């Protein structure tokens, strides 16, 4: 019988007549809830404290860190940033990283937009095969492609040139970008184009003036989601770049850690410089990132 399986828990909650707010307030007070809330905050601390330590220590001197690694910066100094930026050429590395990331994202978005539009809206022979081919790019393991890409770039005399990385990242971004944009273009109603054609537009003007502006949210998602992996990529620049002037932040960071081993304050500043653009992006686009990561699940 159901009655025999009623537990204390459900008895307590049985008169669930009162509004949900009252119920949840009561639940929060129970000892179990206190323990759970503590665990949640503890894990949040585990996530954030290392990053906060990185930021705080980047504003302290090496001596302060060596004597006491924990406290807040009492008299913050930007000395470390100055030395990392100027002496250790982080300014140069940051410029290279920005150039490569921005160009790659721009190119892969620019070429993917018309392709995605054609695949989503037009009927032509080989459309399914083309879509499948682009999608297969999502499954390509990067490691298998590194050596052939290296020799391809070697043949084009592009080793040690940012252009090699821009080409690789642009091509590599096409599958994901097309995939996202196709699903957005498909959701747009067909009457839009018909109306635009009646107004005397052609395929190019309709695409550029009507359709592209309508998928702006999707473009924003794609830009954010391509920016992060390109900015964070380390293996490709490590393989493709040779001279210091062309280093990205990642490769620059590895030489920096070899040379500044005994200057912890500058090391922390270097880590912050490498991470800062992503933190800014994350703060500006939190909602987009969380929705993008969970796309296709739930509502």
């Amino acid at each position, binding site marked *: 019988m159901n009655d025999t399986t009623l537990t204390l828990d459900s008895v307590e909650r049985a008169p669930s007549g009162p509004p949900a707010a009252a119920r949840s307030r009561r639940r929060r007070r129970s000892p179990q809830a206190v323990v759970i809330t503590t665990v949640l905050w503890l894990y949040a601390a585990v996530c954030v404290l290392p990053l906060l330590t990185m930021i705080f220590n980047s504003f302290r001197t090496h001596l302060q860190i060596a004597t006491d690694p924990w406290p807040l910066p009492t008299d913050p100094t930007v000395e470390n940033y100055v030395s990392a930026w100027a002496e250790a050429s982080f300014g140069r590395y940051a410029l290279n990283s920005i150039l490569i990331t921005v160009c790659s994202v721009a190119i892969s978005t620019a070429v993917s937009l018309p392709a995605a539009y054609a695949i989503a809206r037009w009927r032509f022979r080989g459309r399914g095969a083309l879509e499948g081919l682009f999608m297969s790019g999502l499954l390509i393991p990067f*490691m298998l492609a590194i050596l052939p890409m290296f020799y391809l770039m070697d043949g084009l005399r592009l080793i040690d040139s940012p252009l090699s990385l821009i080409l690789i990242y642009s091509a590599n971004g096409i599958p994901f970008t097309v995939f996202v944009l196709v699903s957005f273009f498909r959701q747009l109603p067909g009457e839009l184009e018909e109306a635009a054609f009646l107004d005397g537009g052609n395929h190019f003007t309709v695409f550029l003036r009507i359709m592209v502006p309508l998928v702006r949210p999707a473009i924003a998602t794609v830009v954010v989601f391509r920016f992060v992996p390109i900015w964070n990529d380390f293996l490709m620049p490590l393989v493709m770049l040779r001279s210091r002037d062309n280093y990205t932040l990642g490769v620059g960071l590895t030489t920096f850690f070899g040379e500044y081993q005994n200057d912890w304050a500058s090391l922390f500043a270097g880590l912050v410089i490498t991470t800062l653009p992503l933190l800014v992006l994350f703060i500006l686009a939190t909602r987009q990132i969380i929705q993008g990561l969970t796309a296709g699940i739930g509502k």
Partner: protein
Amino acid sequence: MAQKIKYASNVQRAPAVVVVLFILPAFALFAAVLLYPMASALGYSLFEWRGGANLVRFNWFENFVVLFTEQPYVEQMPRAFLHNIAIFAGTLVLQNSLGLFLAVQLHKLGRMRRLFQVLYTTPYLVSPLVVGYLWTLLLSPSFGPVNAALEWLGLESLAVSWLGEPTTALPVLILVSVWQWIGFPVLLYGAALGAIPPELSDAASVDGADGWRRFRHVTLPLLTPVIGTVSILTFIGGMETFTLPYAFGGATGSPAGATDVLSLLFFRVSFQSGASNALGVSSALATLLFLFILGGALLGRRMIRAQEERLS
């Protein structure tokens, strides 16, 4: 069905020239920089090469035989492989215990949920290289804050050289990679929990199921697809991991190869070994890894399907 009809009415035609103009830029870039190298990659492993990319001859599967019979591959490859498996297994266990627990608890929260989600996801967005170097500094035996805290707590015996000892280096690598990754499963599990109609759980509690049994028999089966998907991504990530181990132990996986993984071995063979036939052998290694990942991912999908059918 309704979706299909609506979709069909959206589709229009354009002249062939226009179609080609729209498609060509993306296709050309994709084919030249990605497709062509990928297609040649699968062939590389079947040839012998000399000093870079000078072709000597077709040598069947000799490069694969070399991997399993000659030093240093015969010693380093199985060790690196086991480390990859350990990273995958450790991450899988923690994301489906701690990660699932966190997701379920967050789901019960109201306004605070988003804040916790953001906090838990932050490490996931930081570069693995920065994460690796940051934890190297934090765990340093000389002035690392972690050991300083342990000593302050009176736990001097625990304040070891975490990344310097072969016995602790791999567990630390696993924990740090979980620390970085776990926000992603927490987010995805949370989204899947949000998609479960509350009536289902309510119906079960009316039927007298307690909290654990509601979770076990109502929630968990509904989460199986997302747990499966995330597990496959974890598998791929665990087998391909490169940057974090590189930041911890350099290209050799120090100390004493304790943090060596397959991608580091591949990197050494390809770019640092100076072996005459480096291209053939490292391509064979990359091909094996690719086949293993593909096989594992397909097997994983079949297991999820079977599990879904058993539970539904």
